[in-house]
């Protein structure tokens, strides 16, 4: 148990918070983006902002895989399930994202689609083995952390000679999203709390360009509350010292070069898409992956000819601006009224890592203060 408590110790937290208060100048504001949904969740779950001085403002980033998936991508999955009759598998959160005509995958199920919730892609492979008469499609989403398991599954399906398994691939790349955020006109960001799990795969090197070319300090941090506080302190020190470097708070898991084996696996199975549309960030060149030609028969998009059609977000939904770091959940007029975790309107209210869901679940009492 010690291994958990160490990172959630109240005294240490107060000590770090005091350090942040001492470090923060009172004549300026520090705008820090936590890139990952995991950080957003930790900040809300532990009420971290209560420990920060007013000068430090945390801005939610786009690092929530379910949130950044545009409606058109869920539509593709729904079309596959409803029109092509495949057995569509995905994670629980993906099934609840509202797509076109108010339909989610879960609701498509009520309309007769065969939609299954799975805990991992290997469950989907197993379903394919058990149901040779059915076509199984796994809706794969996520950043670099979830890509290696997809690669493993595709290779496994290949080795097993499975003819009824394919992947609707929506794996996206963290550095591309970060660059897109920094390239936004008039972006006001002083530093970035960098990804935890993603960085264990890709390492810290890919962020060096953001320090060198964009002058933004990056501190890679774990998902525990003390990690986040420590990273904030390190960012403040960089900013006050006019430094812009990539620092690593999460040394217990992240190296500069990352996990070579996982990278090789990704490289072997996937190749770069020319461009990919993100919710909120629009089309970003070279920001997502697709299966290599050698594995094309496992590529559901090619196999079933379901093309991607862009669809605008639902009216009133501010997810796009929130994912760009321009707005906060409370700026959305339908937050906690028409849009709740039980009945989400936008994707940011679906996953516990989404900014709106985290704020609703843990922080909505602040609206009344």
């Amino acid at each position, binding site marked *: *148990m010690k291994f*958990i408590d160490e990172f*959630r*110790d*109240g005294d240490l*937290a*107060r000590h770090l*918070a005091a350090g942040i208060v001492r470090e923060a100048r009172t004549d300026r504001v520090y705008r820090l983006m936590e890139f990952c949904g995991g950080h957003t969740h930790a900040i*809300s*779950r*532990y*009420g*971290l*902002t*209560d*420990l920060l001085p007013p000068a430090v403002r945390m801005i939610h980033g786009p690092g929530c895989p379910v949130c950044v998936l545009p409606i058109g991508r869920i539509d593709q999955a729904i079309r596959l399930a409803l029109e092509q009759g495949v057995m569509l598998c995905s994670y*629980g959160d993906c099934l609840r994202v509202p797509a076109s005509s108010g339909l989610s995958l879960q609701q498509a199920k009520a309309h007769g689609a065969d939609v299954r919730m799975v805990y991992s892609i290997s469950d989907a492979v197993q379903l394919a083995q058990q149901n040779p008469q059915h076509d199984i499609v796994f809706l794969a989403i996520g950043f670099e952390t979830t890509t290696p398991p997809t690669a493993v599954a595709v290779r496994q399906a290949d080795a097993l000679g499975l003819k009824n398994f394919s992947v609707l691939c929506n794996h996206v790349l963290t550095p591309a999203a970060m660059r897109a955020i920094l390239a936004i006109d008039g972006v006001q960001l002083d530093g970035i709390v960098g990804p935890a799990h993603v960085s264990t795969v890709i390492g810290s090197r890919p962020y060096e360009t953001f320090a060198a070319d964009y002058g933004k300090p990056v501190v890679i941090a774990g998902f525990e*509350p*003390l990690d986040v*506080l420590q990273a904030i302190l390190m960012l403040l020190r960089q900013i006050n010292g006019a430094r812009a470097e990539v620092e690593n708070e999460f040394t217990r898991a992240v190296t500069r070069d990352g996990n070579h084996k996982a990278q090789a696996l990704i490289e072997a199975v996937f190749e770069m898409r020319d461009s990919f549309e993100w919710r909120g960030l629009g089309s970003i060149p070279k920001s997502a992956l697709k299966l290599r030609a050698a594995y094309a028969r496992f590529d559901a998009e090619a196999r079933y000819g379901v093309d991607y059609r862009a669809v605008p977000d639902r009216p009133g939904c501010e997810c796009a601006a929130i994912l760009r770091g321009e707005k906060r959940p409370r700026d959305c007029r339908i937050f906690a009224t028409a849009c709740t*975790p*039980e009945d989400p309107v936008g994707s940011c209210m679906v996953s516990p890592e989404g900014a709106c869901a985290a704020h609703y*679940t*843990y*922080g*909505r*009492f602040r609206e*009344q203060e």
Partner: protein
Amino acid sequence: MKLDLRNGRVEMGHGAGGRAMAQLIAELFAKLLGNDYLAQGDDGAVLPALPGRLVMSTDSHVVSPLFFPGGDIGSLAVNGTVNDVTVMGARPLYLAAAFILEEGYPLAELRRIVESMARAALAAGVLVVTGDTKVVEKGKGDGVFISTTGVGVAREGVTLSGKQARPGDSILLSGSIGEHGTAILSQRAGLAFDASIVSDCAALNGLVEAMLDSGAELRVLRDPTRGGLASTLNELAQQSAAGMLLDEAAIPVIPAVAAACEFLGLDPCYVANEGKLVAICAARDADRLLEVMRRHPLGQNAALIGEVIADSHAFVQMTTRIGGRRILDWLSGEQLPRIC
């Protein structure tokens, strides 16, 4: 022919009302749960007149697996209903039990379950006075389901209700949370972790008796079962139209449960308990009540975990271990199925 309690199995005839059923009742239920009322053998039990207001509660039990560390569906079916009557401020006296058995279920296991019920009833000081048995075809049930209904007499002058929490009141918890739910999960296929977690399944009437005897101004008692502590507190906040402010560090969680929850991605505040209670009392009586609770074996780790505050939104808030504040919300999404 005698009932083969060693190798026999539940047959359709055991629920058909004929001789087989009569034999099952006589040789298993009446024998193990035996008391004068059950022995009457009529369609219902005729009970003596009871003094005071009656409290009645009912609960169905579908736990899977049927046997788990610290209990089984039999003890759970007794304790669950005993506790529901108890937290109304009443002394539970009688239980009715209805069994739905699946054809083919081993009679030896059924006997273990009924024995466990008998032990639990004896420990809680209640009598199982009437019952029913139905059998469903193989594949239509899951071994055994048990519904129990309990009757008790409310203590004079005591009115407990979830509506009675008032700003300033103290919130007490009788012990560490999350043990029942994690003990069940630890038994489910594929989740073989720390086997040291034992369900807290127990009858709380002794503890509550002591609490009522203390003379403390008790306003609310409730057992945080399905949905855990968080769901119970949200229910109470809503019923009382008041908020709550908890101190996360004060909520007892044993290390094995904390580790299991971490592994499973669960928050112990949402995990079921079967032998714990939440008490809300006037702040001036909190210390006294806490002392009484801690003297009882089921309240040794009792703790003051927070206070009721004025809040028209009825939010349950919590000061986190690291000093921030957050909501402890209703459980959203799926609960763990078949936990009780």
